[in-house]
């Protein structure tokens, strides 16, 4: 561990670190190099509560997804986030991460119920709650999703869980070109199939594949797979394709949100990408064009300044 890395073991310790740094005019970076002080959440990694009957859990932000999901699996449950690698829950929020199952379950912002954050000046604040439905006060847990450490440190997170499906099966369909891929995506969109994931592994030169994941009861999944094959073609394959999809996503330089109807145009512009056609999201191998409009950028800057007026967070 580098000398300037601090790994607090409690929220109070984390608050003390930030408060002291800001008082001394030091720059702090969270979970990455760059500041005079680097705060790591690796020791803030406990499961504080798992209420299986409520399908909710509250954890410290430094816990790894794999460790959390292994524990939840003992109760037949999961946090339905499957981004590449094995990020911490805090990282999932900070970058609003998701993986193939974004299609059905949403991104981190859709699964977070509440957070405790530590602001640059050491203020500890909670928002949201630990129940699945709650509109009391501003939902700062959403605001911190995608904030990339610029608004404060995410310390504790309450999450909505899902039951582990009894059965999972995968269908893979070759897509000849952009028009073919777009036509498959359209068919799925207008069908009554309910896939948990729809990923297009796009490679304009070497051939592309569309993968669908079905989850549910044994008979329910079998019926869906049969219906999907009839409507779309393709073959059932082992789940390895999802590792490929996640690996492709991991290699991406950035993500482009797009209106799903423009799929064919988007594919025409890029030689390689991992695309989630149903939600309108393309992971590109080159930096994506800027999509935030200037007025929104100014608003964001005002929000950032309100949370970190001294500019402590690097």
């Amino acid at each position, binding site marked *: 561990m580098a000398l300037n890395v601090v790994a607090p073991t409690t929220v109070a310790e984390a608050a003390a670190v930030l408060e002291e740094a800001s008082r001394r005019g030091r720059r702090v970076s969270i979970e990455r190099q760059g500041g005079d002080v680097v705060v790591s959440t690796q020791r803030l990694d406990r499961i504080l509560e798992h209420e299986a009957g409520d399908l909710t859990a509250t954890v410290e932000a430094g816990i790894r997804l794999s460790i959390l999901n292994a524990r939840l699996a003992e109760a037949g449950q999961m946090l339905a986030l499957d981004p590449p690698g094995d990020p911490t829950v805090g990282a999932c929020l900070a970058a609003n991460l998701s993986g193939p199952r974004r299609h059905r379950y949403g991104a981190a912002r859709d699964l977070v119920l509440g957070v405790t954050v530590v602001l640059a000046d050491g203020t500890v604040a909670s928002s949201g709650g630990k129940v699945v439905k709650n509109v009391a006060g501003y939902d700062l847990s959403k605001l911190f999703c995608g904030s990339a450490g610029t608004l404060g440190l995410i310390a504790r997170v309450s999450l909505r869980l899902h039951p582990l499906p009894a059965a999972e099966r995968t269908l893979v369909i070759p897509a000849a070109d952009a028009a073919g891929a777009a036509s498959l995506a359209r068919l799925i969109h207008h069908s009554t199939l309910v896939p948990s994931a729809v990923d297009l592994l796009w490679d304009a030169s070497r051939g592309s594949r569309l993968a669908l994941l079905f989850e549910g009861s044994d008979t329910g999944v079998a019926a869906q797979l049969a219906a999907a094959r009839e409507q779309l073609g393709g073959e059932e394959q082992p789940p390895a394709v999802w590792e490929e999809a996640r690996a492709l996503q991991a290699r991406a330089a950035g993500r482009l949100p797009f209106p799903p109807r423009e799929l064919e145009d988007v594919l025409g512009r890029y030689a390689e990408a991992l695309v989630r056609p149903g939600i*309108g999201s393309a992971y590109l191998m080159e930096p994506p064009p800027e999509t935030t409009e200037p007025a929104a950028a100014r608003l964001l800057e005002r929000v950032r300044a309100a949370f970190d007026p001294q500019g402590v967070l690097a």
Partner: protein
Amino acid sequence: MSLAPELVRALVDAVGAENVVSEPADLRTYECDGLTSYRVVPELVLLPRTAEQVQAAVRLCHEHGVPFVARGAGTGLSGGAVPCPGGIVISLARMNRILEIDLESGRIVVEPGVTNLDVSKAVVPHGFYYAPDPSSQQVCTIGGNVAENSGGAHCLKHGFTVNHVTGLELVLPDGELVTLGGKGLDPPGPDLLGAFIGSEGTLGIVTKITLRLVRSPEAVRVLLAGFDSTEQAGAAVSDVIAAGILPAAMEIMDRLTLEAVEAAVHAGYPDAGAVLIVELDGPTGQADDDLGRVEAICRERGAGEIRIAAGEAERALTWKGRKAAFAAMGRISPNYYVQDGVVPRTRLQEVLHRIGELGREHGLRVGNVFHAGDGNLHPLVLYDRRDEEETARAKELAEAILATCIDAGGALTGEHGIGLDKRAKLPLMFSQSDIETMLRLKAAFDPGGLCNPGKIFPADVPPGAYGLHPLDRLGGGA
């Protein structure tokens, strides 16, 4: 306090005389929302037809330091749309056009005054619908749904407004127009869109909304089960969740509610202590599998009569009673107060039991109709407003019920919002630093404090009045 004549002239010019309400008798229409106990007559009501007109009006308010409140259909139940003293109301009722139906993207772009049900009506013929369905969906507007992050019976499976809005165009409190998100999901950067939704009209005025459409399911199955008590019905709900089944909706009505509903809409519910409605949707095979399992769970939990709706007409009738429940209470009580609290689903039975005790202790009837699947309770406290002492007791009872929810690890409101009604209660759930941190967001959006002021946040809180947030109670060394 009245508005300066030159400001009134400028506001009338900004939106056009035909879009202004200024007669005292007409202004009274806007003095309250669905919670009629808070009333303030606005100085002026504007009904702009375009985003430019909203911008112009807001800019004038900003320049003159006049508070403004945006209003949809006025069906809110927390006083969130009550005007501010000396302020104006900006009604979005006339911005009610559907701007674009993009079926290929599964999106619809609407103005804020479009009603919730009209969104679904526009796309149902094409095999799609809009999922959030508050009980007031025939009249409530999408703009209001965005302000309140509205839910509804079907949000158990399909999520809330925040899970279905992909883009917003809004007028900031200084008049600037900003676009957040679009038709694609998960725009980069902090989720301002998610933070804005549910901010109860305190951060700006929405002028255009892009919504996600959901494909109509292949199969819908509705099961209705009669139980001896709400506790028993609540236990069945817990079992369904524990079995890993995610129904589209799970709703419970108790005996008192059933009586009122039967008198009002003749839905033909069984004579029982409580009725549980479970709706399952999805591919046929999966829905039928789940239906069989839910039926078995209900039987194990001692359900008497179990009915499975045979077709669309029966399904509609089953839901008609549920959606009419609040209004039906008017048949058995001169007045009622709708409480809106949330409890963890595992605590349902115990909290329902406690609500029964509290009702008896206060000598008042409480009807229970609620979104059981997500633990969102709507106890209806029945009272007679003409009796001052009883009115005070009803308020006390409603507050005691809310405190019970918070003690069980729940929340102050599941879908009706804090508004004016519960702002003094916010410290039950949030500490001073929690609230001050939320106010940083407010300050970034609305430094002048003119956008729906006085809502959500308590005016002043005595020292030591703050409770512990549910997350802080879990410790972890806070």
